[in-house]
């Protein structure tokens, strides 16, 4: 009898956890719709977005540039050693460019973005909630959705594709430095092979579409976790952790789905 009771308790816990996560998912979806509809008000106050673009985009730029440079350099080195056995070391340029534009640019940028900007957004909004600034705004008839959440969401969505393109461009430069300056490959074939193989629509545009999708998802998770957090210091810490974990997982999963949709033939 005791065993049966414990079994039913377990069952109840599982059910409660499932209902809880579905409820959160539903809240998050309603929240996203609210945020998007609040974004209309940003046309009246574009300066709110500019200020957030600074803290979300510009301050993330340095980590993106450094990471892009080193990712490009490492990729050039590794693909050189793999390709030189086949006498195909001239293809280093096209290999690095394709990998960066299709996958690494959007994905690595989005992961860094979730860690650097997403966690900061969650912490900021969560602290505002914990110190009752958000309810204070409501008391003054200022809609915190329009004033706080929408500008941050918009700034994230605008920043991500810009950051991802900068990442890819810097990565290609890094690969150029290693391949041409260090390993002594011909700079003409380094640039001309990608120009033959990399397609503007298939590769460049699809990479940008990916980065926009990642930007929406990462910023959505970040602002939702902040807005929905338990307003204590512990709840805030958990929310920040959840932001990074959930957005990283969502980005990697979505990357697979998008790649399957875009590049599968």
């Amino acid at each position: 009898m005791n065993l049966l009771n414990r079994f039913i308790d377990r069952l109840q816990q599982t059910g409660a956890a499932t209902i809880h996560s579905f409820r959160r998912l539903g809240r998050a979806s309603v929240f996203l719709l609210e945020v998007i509809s609040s974004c209309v008000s940003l046309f009246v106050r574009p300066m709110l977005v500019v200020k957030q673009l600074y803290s979300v985009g510009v301050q993330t730029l340095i980590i993106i540039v450094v990471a892009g440079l080193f990712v490009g350099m490492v990729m050039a080195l590794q693909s050189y050693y793999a390709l030189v056995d086949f006498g195909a070391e001239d293809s280093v340029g096209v290999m690095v460019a394709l990998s960066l534009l299709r996958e690494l640019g959007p994905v690595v940028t989005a992961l860094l973005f979730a860690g650097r900007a997403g966690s900061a957004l969650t912490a900021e909004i969560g602290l505002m909630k914990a110190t009752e600034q958000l309810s204070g705004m409501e008391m003054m008839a200022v809609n915190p959705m329009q004033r706080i959440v929408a500008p941050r969401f918009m700034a994230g969505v605008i920043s991500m594709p810009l950051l991802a393109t900068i990442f890819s461009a810097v990565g290609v430069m890094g690969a150029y430095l290693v391949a041409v300056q260090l390993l002594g490959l011909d700079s003409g074939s380094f640039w001309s092979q990608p120009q033959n193989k990399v397609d503007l629509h298939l590769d460049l545009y699809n990479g940008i579409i990916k980065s926009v999708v990642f930007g929406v998802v990462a910023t959505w998770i970040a602002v939702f976790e902040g807005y929905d957090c338990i307003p204590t210091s512990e709840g805030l810490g958990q929310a920040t952790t959840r932001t990074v974990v959930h957005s990283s997982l969502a980005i990697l999963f979505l990357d697979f789905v998008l790649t399957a949709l875009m590049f599968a033939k």
Partner: protein
Amino acid sequence: MISRKIEILVGLFVAAGIAAFFMLAMSVSNMSSYSSGESYEIKARFDNIGGLKVRSPVSAGGVTIGRVSDIQYNSESYEAEVSMRIEAKYNKFPVDTAASILTSGLLGEQFIGFEPGAEDEFLQSGDVIDLTQSALVLEQIIGQFLYSMSDNDDTGDAE
């Protein structure tokens, strides 16, 4: 109010993003090879196109003069029908120009090579090239080679 410095930095950030996009578009991707100007269409029929694809280059004397725009299979003549868009400035190909499917390098991509003829009339938009040479399919060549080898062996035995 937001300080001037922040606005300038945001402006720089957006400009850097757009600059990076154009740098990728111009120097890494094939945007520069998208024929911006006018072009005309020529068709050619091949028995076998091998690995030729849409957007494969068309070249004359090693210079890319256009790209394959469409590939269809004609089930009446049992031939592959390849449409090519040739840049308008290369409009002086004689009507007896030969088109053959070549391979760049041993295992490289396939492309169409033009070999100009000697007629006085030039190919117009919509014309069909009659002189064509199909792609070399490695398996067939190896098969023929083995076949001729065994032939030689037979004759050698007979002598």
